[in-house]
């Protein structure tokens, strides 16, 4: 199949999925009881003010017309306003998404660094200690509640004032207070990713602070996201190592190093990268729980704060952004596969 045709078709699928997501989200947020107009003008406002706001927001229109208006707004890049922050939602998201991107990317890199090599090694040595350990850790990683894990890490590296025995104390020195990215002064704004900005500005003090605040939430996510990656890598590696073509290459004396690196690895990394894409899409959409625990000012935190305040425009925007980032990362990975995997070429 031609690449352009393939991309177009995938883009069409993506639009359909986005349409579905926006519809579900819209219905969920609009069917809700209660008039959002009161949230904006206050409960004490007189009826004419409420009516005016209701009309301005189109809340008196039938639901399908409201959705139509909403889609029209979306198409012109308007995500509405947040009454909680009194900003356009696009402004709010512009300020918060970099924090999510920074956290998600760091977490993914950390996750890849431990899970993929571990998965490969454990698959090569079946029933060894490292294999059993891999099985245990992947089981633990998919079962552990991430908010609790974050809390435990905070307990170990930040708190533990009376309980902590001596050896933990020195570690406390480099662990941050659990208050997100507000410690110290942020570096000069270029990309919005504090660590990257700090490096660009050669501001090592700011880099230290930024990395400092990033490490615990990123480590929490790295374990949660790494566990399924470990599982998948281990599974595919096992399968590949017992395949006919590996047996053939062995039977012709190809050295073990080349069997693993040249013959097996590409067969494993192709499917594993799909899983990586899913994980990255999930991370970029804002990880509600971890951002909540660490007070990380990203999209997830923004969404949950807005939900608690019944502020629905930001919630809808966060849902759409989350779905969009998932779909885009998945699409990019799919196209990369299409170009790399020889089996899709003919």
């Amino acid at each position, binding site marked *: 199949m031609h690449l352009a045709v393939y991309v177009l078709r995938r883009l069409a699928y993506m639009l*359909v*999925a*986005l*349409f*579905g*997501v926006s519809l*579900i*989200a819209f219905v*969920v*947020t609009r*069917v*809700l*009881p*209660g008039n959002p107009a009161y949230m904006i003008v206050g409960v004490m406002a007189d009826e004419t003010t409420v009516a005016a706001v209701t009309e301005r927001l189109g809340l008196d229109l039938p639901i399908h017309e409201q959705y139509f208006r909403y889609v029209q707004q979306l198409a012109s890049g308007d995500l509405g306003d947040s009454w909680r922050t009194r900003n356009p939602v696009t402004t709010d998201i512009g300020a918060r998404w970099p924090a999510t991107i920074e956290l998600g990317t760091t977490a993914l890199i950390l996750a890849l660094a431990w899970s993929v090599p571990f998965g490969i090694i454990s698959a090569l040595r079946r029933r060894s200690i490292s294999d059993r350990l891999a099985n245990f850790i992947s*089981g*633990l990683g*998919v*079962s*552990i*509640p991430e*908010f*609790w894990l974050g*809390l*435990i890490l*905070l*307990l170990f590296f*930040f*708190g*533990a*004032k*009376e*309980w*902590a025995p001596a050896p933990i104390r020195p570690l406390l020195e480099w662990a941050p207070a*659990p208050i997100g990215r507000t410690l110290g002064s942020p570096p000069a704004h270029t990309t919005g990713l504090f660590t990257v900005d700090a490096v660009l500005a050669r501001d090592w003090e700011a880099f230290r602070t930024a990395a400092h605040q990033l490490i615990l939430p990123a480590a929490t996510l790295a374990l949660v996201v790494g566990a399924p990656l470990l599982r998948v890598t281990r599974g595919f590696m096992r399968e590949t190592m017992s395949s006919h073509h590996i047996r053939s290459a062995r039977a012709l004396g190809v050295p073990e190093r080349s069997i693993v690196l040249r013959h097996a690895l590409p067969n494993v990394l192709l499917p594993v990268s799909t899983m990586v894409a899913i994980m990255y899409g999930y991370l970029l*959409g*804002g990880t*509600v*729980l971890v951002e*909540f*625990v660490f007070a990380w000012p990203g999209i997830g935190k923004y*969404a*949950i704060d807005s*939900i*608690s305040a*019944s502020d629905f425009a930001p*919630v809808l925007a*966060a*849902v759409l952004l*989350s*779905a969009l980032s*998932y*779909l885009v990362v998945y699409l990019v990975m799919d196209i990369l596969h299409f170009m790399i995997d020889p089996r899709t070429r003919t």
Partner: protein
Amino acid sequence: MTSRAATNATTDRSRLGRVVREALRRPAYLSMAIIVLVALIGPLLVRDPLEFLGDTLAGPSAEFWFGTDQFGRDIFARVVHAARLDLWVGLIAAALAVTVGMPLGALGAYRGGLFDTLLLRISESFQAFPTLLLALGIVAALGPSIPILVVIIALVNVPVYLRLTRSAVKPLVDSDFVLAARCAGKSQGAILRRHVLPNVSEIIFAQFSVNVAWAIQILAALSFVGLGVQKPTPEWGAMVRDGADYTIYGQWWVSVFPGLAILATVLTLNYLSDEIRHGQRRSIGNR
């Protein structure tokens, strides 16, 4: 008569022995049995989870095994009481999701056509959907009562069963025995019930265990962010949240024990699912 009773007793005992041996060989079953037992009869044996007992934030001791919280309530009693709630919500939500998702998925695979495509597209949209945000949004709108929580958790689990059943049923639809049943003039519902679904039930069971685990995780997460089970009802996620501020300053027991309860339950359910799958593979291998 007496001798018959005696033989019955010995076979019962040896059967019990076999069950015990089997349980030891498969720790997931044993662990699940213990958790269910705790949820069933535990609440009868422990203190009142809502009673203020005096000492606040006392560490674990012989009297209070898991310590007390900021109101001086017995954390052990609260964890045990919460087990019943969390397991119930998990079970009912997963069961609800199966009863909706499985027939829909099977029907989609069986019928094909526009109906199937539509189902597939909707469940794909759900895959891109941030599940937790969806659940949070609905709870925020409708208010966090337990029946609403169950329905919402079931709702976000439906697409999982739908896709799973659909992919398991699809290859069966074209199989010869279904064709034969069709030729025999059986109705669509009868074919699905008698010929198709029994063949996929084991996959569904393995998935069910995972989904109970997932439902408990979602419930705990919702409660943790304050939109799930409300105070003062004991629930693991809510308890982790209540203790969070104390935990990071050193009163670790307030959050650690309820979190461990979530971890142990979810881990057990996940391993149980692996066991069901492996057992199934074993029995197919022996066939």
